[in-house]
């Protein structure tokens, strides 16, 4: 980002303009064209690896292979255009039931696992944020579950949850964790939280460690206790980091595939997620409806991401800060830049601009 948005030095010196406040987006013609030229390779790559596959999936979702065999018992290889029929089928009959079930499972897993992960991750971060002996060791060991590949952790937990496994031995129970039913849902949630809470924990810890010690010192002098410090200093200041971490986890959880697939098995309705359903359809060579499932999942993820960013104000790209900055006059701009320099990840370009107008 930084390199592509930075105006080249030549453009700056070649087109002299009056010093003083300057609005964003108000550039000289040469500068703009140059920026466009420099941006286009990036956009080209994005178009090829994101836009093209996406459009291709949408296109595929409008077709369906002819069913049935011809007189010699051969499959016809013609795909016919069926419009939105693949999408309409998502809501009726057997495939509709499976889709809604997978949709409900996906949502349920996302809500429960992300909530538990956030709570647990925060606790982990708070524990690790204190200076004590062996902290580096603890921090490294907490990262282990995150470092284990999901499929491998699925196998590990499958071993724990099998009918004569450790889980049943410890609990003294005879729960069939890997059969259909609520127990299998619980098994997935436990394994997923175990695996991903460290991710939130470490991101939040990073956020906590940039909070200056003086703030806590001042709070202590003012007589604030631990809880007060947590509620008034720690949580508000790690909120931006926390929101980004939660957003990432939500997007990840909505695409959940490998853990239920390995831990419980494909085709188990209790834990079937949208990704598993799309995989299964494409495995049955029904690429049309598989694409429809995938497009629906994509839309769902996109909607969740947008709503989350809008409602909770998770500042994922730093765009909000840029917008705020651009609205202010140069003087205020400079002040704001100086104030937020430590915390905000301003792009070099804006800093340069602020200096240029000084």
């Amino acid at each position, binding site marked *: 980002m930084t390199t592509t948005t930075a105006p080249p030095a030549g453009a700056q010196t070649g087109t002299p303009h009056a010093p003083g406040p300057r609005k964003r987006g108000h550039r000289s013609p040469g500068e*703009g064209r140059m920026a466009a030229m420099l941006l286009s390779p990036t956009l080209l790559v994005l178009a090829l690896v994101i836009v093209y596959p996406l459009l291709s999936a949408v296109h595929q979702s409008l077709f369906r292979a002819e069913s049935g065999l011809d007189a010699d*018992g051969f499959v016809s290889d013609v795909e016919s255009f069926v419009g939105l029929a693949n999408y309409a089928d998502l809501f009726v009959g057997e495939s509709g039931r499976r889709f809604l079930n997978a949709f409900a499972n996906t949502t349920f897993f996302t809500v429960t696992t992300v909530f538990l992960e956030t709570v647990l991750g925060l606790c982990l971060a708070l524990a690790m944020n204190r200076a004590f002996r062996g902290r580096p060791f603890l921090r490294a060991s907490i990262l282990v579950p995150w470092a284990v590949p999901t499929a491998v952790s699925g196998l590990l937990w499958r071993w724990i949850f099998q009918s004569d496994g450790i889980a049943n031995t410890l609990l003294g129970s005879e729960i069939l964790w890997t059969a259909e039913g609520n127990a299998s849902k619980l098994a997935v949630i436990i394994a997923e939280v175990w695996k991903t809470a460290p991710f939130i924990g470490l991101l939040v810890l990073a956020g906590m460690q940039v909070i200056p010690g003086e703030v806590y010192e001042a709070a202590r002098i003012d007589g604030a206790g631990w809880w007060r410090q947590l509620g008034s200093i720690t949580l508000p200041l790690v909120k931006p980091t926390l929101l980004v971490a939660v957003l990432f986890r939500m997007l990840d959880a909505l695409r959940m595939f490998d853990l239920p697939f390995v831990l419980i098995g494909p*085709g188990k309705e209790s834990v079937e997620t949208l990704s598993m359903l799309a995989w299964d359809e494409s495995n049955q060579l029904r690429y049309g409806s598989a694409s429809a499932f995938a497009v629906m999942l994509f839309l769902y993820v996109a909607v969740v991401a947008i709503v989350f960013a809008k409602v909770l104000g998770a500042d994922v790209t730093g765009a909000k800060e840029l917008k705020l900055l651009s609205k202010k006059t140069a003087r205020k701009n400079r002040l704001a830049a100086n104030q937020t320099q430590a915390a905000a990840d301003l792009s070099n370009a804006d800093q340069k601009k602020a200096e240029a107008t000084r």
Partner: protein
Amino acid sequence: MRQRRRTWQTLLATTATLTVAAVALTGCGGTATEAKSTPKAAAASFEGKGPINYVSNRDASGAANKSIEEWNAAHPEEKVTFIELPDSADQQRQQLIQNAQIKSDTFSVLNLDVVWTSEFAANKWILPLPADAVPTEKMIPATVNAATYRDSLVGAPYYTDGALFYFRSDLLKAAGIAAPPKTWDEMKTACKAILALPEAAGMSCYTGQFDKNEALTVNFSEAVASAGGSIVDADGKPTVNTPEAKEGLNLLVNGFKDGMFPSDAITYLEEQGRRAFQDGKLVFMRNWPFLHASLSATDGSSKVAGKFDITSIPGTDGPGVSTLGGRSLAISPFTPNKATALEFVKFFTSEEQAQKRLALSSRAPVYASLFEDPAVVAKRPFFPTLLTSLNNAQPRPKVVQYGATTKAIQEEAYAAITGAKDTDTALNDMQAKLTELTK
């Protein structure tokens, strides 16, 4: 404002030009599936000699490699390269299909699971073989049947597999039962007597594989076939709403209901069943022959070594009907060197090579005569029983959409054995789904 618009115009124009250029260059311009020029399958001629690729599942024993080395030594101009696919059958099938769909000539000779035969043949992803390609008359009939699609042989049977019925001979003797049970009723009676013995405390009667998996399709097919029913008839139409199918499914449903099967058998695949039997928790078990070696291990890992024996699986009125596992070799229509491919298939699946491979591999050959060779039997004591089982075996449903079919079967059979649906509802739903799939 105008400046900005100009910027955007430049940006869009540049990007668009570059995209078009790149798309044209990389040749990913269109996804439309033009009607393919479909070579009439029957007119396939096997021409072209040269190096080919043999794509297969893993062969840990190294026996397949030995055969290939022998071929390569004799045919330096038509070398065969062994391409190994992942262990998971689903992934193997996916890779094979993807290569066929783009008509890649990378895969020349395909090693196919018997249940994929119909799908690959109906999609013209494999060629029908000439009538004299393989000595079918010497092979176990069920293996030839499994490699046949609509009366034409599309694969050369390579190896096979069938069910074995493992039983605790020591306990049968202790309970005074002379012969192993041949029917489910006899098994129930035997269990009653055996489980009453003090040394059988805490044991369960029987298990198969009942987790929602391909293995459930196998166990369901066997139960239905053993009760005299079938899943699809000779014309490929589903027949699971018959009284025989109901009787078959009820064997499994009642097994769970009456406590004849351990309750956690609903999570059993081959491995879990082996462990339970090996730890002395089961009297009877339906499983594949490959377990025989680990159950007989005398290093202390198996508590039942020397205490068990094998026979054919039970049925309702006599010995049951095993399903058929195994693999066959088929030739891709997209390989340029079809003559070499055909010659290699003939060589690889010949009786001579099958016999040589037996020295290393425990995979059961498709030639009946090899099962009775004393030297072989000494090494693989389960072979005579397996041959009986195979002679009475039936392929799993031969349908084009096998993936969706087995899924529907698993779905409904699982619902029935877990008690989520009663037998009639499950079978009616299964019939409806299969009718849709075999239209």
